[in-house]
């Protein structure tokens, strides 16, 4: 068995054993979906934009993946606090493989949570425009999850405790989320917001998901994919670089 595989497996096993994590992971996005979807639905429709719930589903899926992949950094905090990190750091394996194994595990659990939101959306009436395109959605979710999980490993490497991590987490994740077009279309926003959104990689993940799920796009799928790929590579490099200097 491979080191990356066993560390990946560890994250996945831990996820499925913590039932409360699964409930919590899906509960919050569900609240967003129901409260915003039904709450703003009428206004959105009156503005001539169509079905808001349908518009919102891809954004909320991306949100779920963003938040839960970022949570992987908190797992590193736990590993520091409860000592398991030392077990991996004295082992004869490269830091890169330790980082990748954990981050891919964290990414996998994030994608599972994103897809859970998708299935719940189906129950409340959401239908993708093309069932085959859902596979492309899955690829986009995976890229987003991997890049964010690597990013959070990088952050988790140099932050010392959970409080510090939470502070950075909130400082970064909420702007990434609220300034991404996950909740509103970017077509008619003020120029400053559009510019901010254009520099936010999260916007491209949301846009790509919207394109594959409901056929609406702001940037175009090709551009979305390129930005996502570059982001993934850069953040993977960031994670790998920071993780080399991690101390137990």
């Amino acid at each position: 068995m491979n080191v990356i595989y066993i560390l990946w497996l560890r994250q996945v096993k831990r996820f499925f054993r913590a039932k409360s994590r699964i409930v919590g992971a899906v509960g919050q996005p569900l609240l967003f979906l129901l409260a915003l979807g039904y709450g703003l639905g009428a206004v959105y429709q009156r503005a001539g934009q169509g079905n808001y719930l349908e518009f919102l589903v891809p954004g909320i899926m991306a949100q779920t993946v963003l938040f839960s992949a970022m949570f992987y950094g908190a797992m590193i905090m736990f590993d520091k606090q409860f000592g398991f990190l030392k077990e991996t750091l004295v082992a004869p394996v490269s830091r890169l493989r330790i980082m990748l194994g954990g981050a891919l595990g964290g990414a996998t659990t994030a994608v599972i949570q994103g897809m859970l939101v998708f299935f719940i959306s189906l129950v409340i009436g959401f239908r993708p425009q093309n069932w085959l395109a859902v596979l492309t959605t899955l690829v986009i979710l995976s890229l987003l999850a991997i890049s964010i999980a690597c990013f959070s490993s990088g952050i988790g490497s140099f932050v010392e405790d959970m409080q510090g991590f939470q502070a950075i987490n909130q400082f970064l994740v909420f702007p990434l989320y609220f300034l991404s077009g996950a909740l509103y279309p970017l077509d008619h926003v003020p120029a400053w917001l559009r510019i901010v959104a254009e520099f936010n990689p999260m916007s491209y993940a949301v846009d790509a998901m919207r394109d594959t799920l409901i056929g609406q796009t702001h940037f175009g799928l090709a551009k979305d994919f390129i930005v996502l790929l570059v982001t993934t590579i850069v953040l993977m490099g960031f994670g790998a670089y920071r993780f080399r200097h991690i101390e137990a």
Partner: protein
Amino acid sequence: MSKEPIIRLEHVTKKFGTVTAVNDVSFETRRGELFALLGPNGAGKSTTIKMLTTLVKPTSGTLTLAGHNVTKAQDKARKSFGIVFQDPSVDGELTAYENMELHAVLYSLSRKTARPRIEALLRLVELWNRRDTPVKNFSGGMKRRLEIARGLLHHPHVLFLDEPTLGLDTQTRNLLWDYVQKMRREENMTVFFTTHYLEEAEANADRIGIIDHGELIALGSTKELTKQTKTTNLEQAYLALTGKTVRDEEVGPHEAWRARQRARTMR
């Protein structure tokens, strides 16, 4: 026991900022030896173990483990030792067996070689019947036993034990030393440990090093140390060498960080 050195420190110094945690320390331990490193809190014991186990790099000097330079041939050095840390380092969400299995993969043991070894070691530490229990349900003593079994899994040349019996009852402490002695005899393993229980060092160690203020101030068997200090047992010899004042000196940056963590967990 052969004369061949398995651990060698040559003029090792470690500074954290302006604090010198370890100052020009040199000594050797022989293959198969049971070696105790003693010293008051903040003397440099943990930093020495951290340098030997690749967790921190020395500021200067050379550390050699089973013939491998610890800073230059990290992975080879890592393969040659097992360690039981002062605080638990097992994954509580995984079962005892899964923790062992994960360790086997980290040390690239094949499943075929790992399986019988895991069974034998879990039987040795009397946890085979609890192998499928998540470790978070284990007591402190059970966790420590599991960590010892895990540290031995990949047939290390050296087993590091950083205060292995801290907080354990007398029965468990005796058991632990029985396991360690048995494995040492069977596999000609070197055991390097730190402890505050001097009677444990006296009963188990072949040789003892005493470190204080980052410097090695004495090295020898209990007999040699008592003779040198004209005392009758190790505890008296130790106090004669390190003095009787309680140490309230600043702890190292690593220890300070860990203390903060612990305080937080208890809150």
